[in-house]
């Protein structure tokens, strides 16, 4: 007999048993419990029937979707995964960045203090008398311009040998999309993709609805 407090736990365990998620010992215990309890056995059978129905329904719906569409969906998924993988992750903040952030509350007062000090220094300088007995300052004579390492022209790099020329009568195509005035897809499947650089028309030769290896 089941106690009321045991029912939710048992239902969860039964579902986990059904899904094969219990560890070996728990699964054995659950199997024994099911053998003893016809009500649980009935629940388990109902779950199996339900899964079968849902699975069949999904397969029927999948069969209605053409293989080409599955391929397109998977391509889009692959593309989004690639984009996520290639997205740069934020680099951890360096020591100085953390110090700078820690001093954020003191920045304004520190700047104000520095400004006041600068004003005071200028005022003191203006009030002081002219220095006496000091040699006149002489403008420094510019040294003969010596070539700095940056000025020295590096020898021109020798051009890399060209790859073997391929007979190519056409220039590189300009980045431009085509304007489609009319289109008919043989199998009533296809799509137009405008990338900004090129127009791509996708067609699929095999028009029959069939399961792909990637299908549900």
């Amino acid at each position: 007999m089941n106690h009321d407090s045991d029912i939710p736990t048992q239902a969860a365990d039964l579902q986990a048993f059904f899904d094969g998620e219990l560890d070996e010992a728990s699964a054995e215990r659950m199997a024994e419990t099911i053998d003893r309890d016809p009500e649980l056995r009935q629940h388990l059978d109902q779950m199996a029937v339900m899964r079968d129905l849902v699975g069949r329904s999904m397969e029927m719906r999948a069969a209605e979707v053409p293989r080409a569409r599955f391929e397109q969906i998977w391509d889009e998924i692959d593309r989004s995964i690639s984009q996520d993988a290639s997205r740069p992750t934020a680099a951890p903040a360096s020591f100085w960045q953390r110090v700078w952030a820690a001093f954020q509350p003191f920045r304004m007062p520190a700047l104000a203090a520095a400004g006041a000090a600068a004003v005071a220094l200028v005022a003191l300088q203006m009030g002081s008398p002219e220095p006496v007995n000091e040699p006149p300052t002489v403008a420094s004579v510019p040294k003969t311009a010596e070539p700095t390492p940056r000025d020295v022209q590096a020898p021109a790099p020798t051009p890399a040998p060209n790859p073997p020329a391929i007979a190519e009568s056409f220039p590189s195509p300009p980045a431009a999309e085509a304007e489609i005035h009319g289109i008919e897809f043989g199998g009533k499947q296809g799509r137009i993709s405008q990338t900004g650089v090129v127009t791509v028309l996708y067609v699929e030769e095999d028009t029959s609805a069939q399961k792909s290896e990637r299908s549900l």
Partner: protein
Amino acid sequence: MTHRKKNRLLTTVLAAGLVPVSAFAGVFSLAMAADAAVTKASCQVNAVLLKKEGDGTIPPELEFLKPTLQTEEFENYKGYELIERKALKLALDTKSEATFTIGHRVGLTLLGGDEARLKLHADLSSRDGTKSLLSTDYSINNNGLLMIGAGAYSDEKRSGKLFFAIQCGGAG
């Protein structure tokens, strides 16, 4: 002479000068446009196999496709192979056709255009040639590229997605 009379005289003089110039420019433009209309075009059609396996190196014979293959649209592909290249000469309103060893036929017709832009018709047959997979009218910049993705392709040596890259340049 009053101000109004001056204005009227100026308007008349300007009109007398501008109307013939405009008319001449219009006729000249039309004549130039008529001269620029293309009646012939040269095309190349490349059957290209794109594979998800590869080191991303684009072979020299497909170097002209590099900007295209490096777009987001094709970023899933890392292997590139030219299966076959065909050259076609087009005359106005006359269909030219190329049959590839893998079975597909690509037909191209020059419908018109000028030095900057061509109007074309393209069609693609199935591998066994029994049915049309695509039939389209399009206009594109001179030497512009149209890609047709013809789905999965495999033979004994290779497998991937088959694309036809069509590039046409017009001539007077």
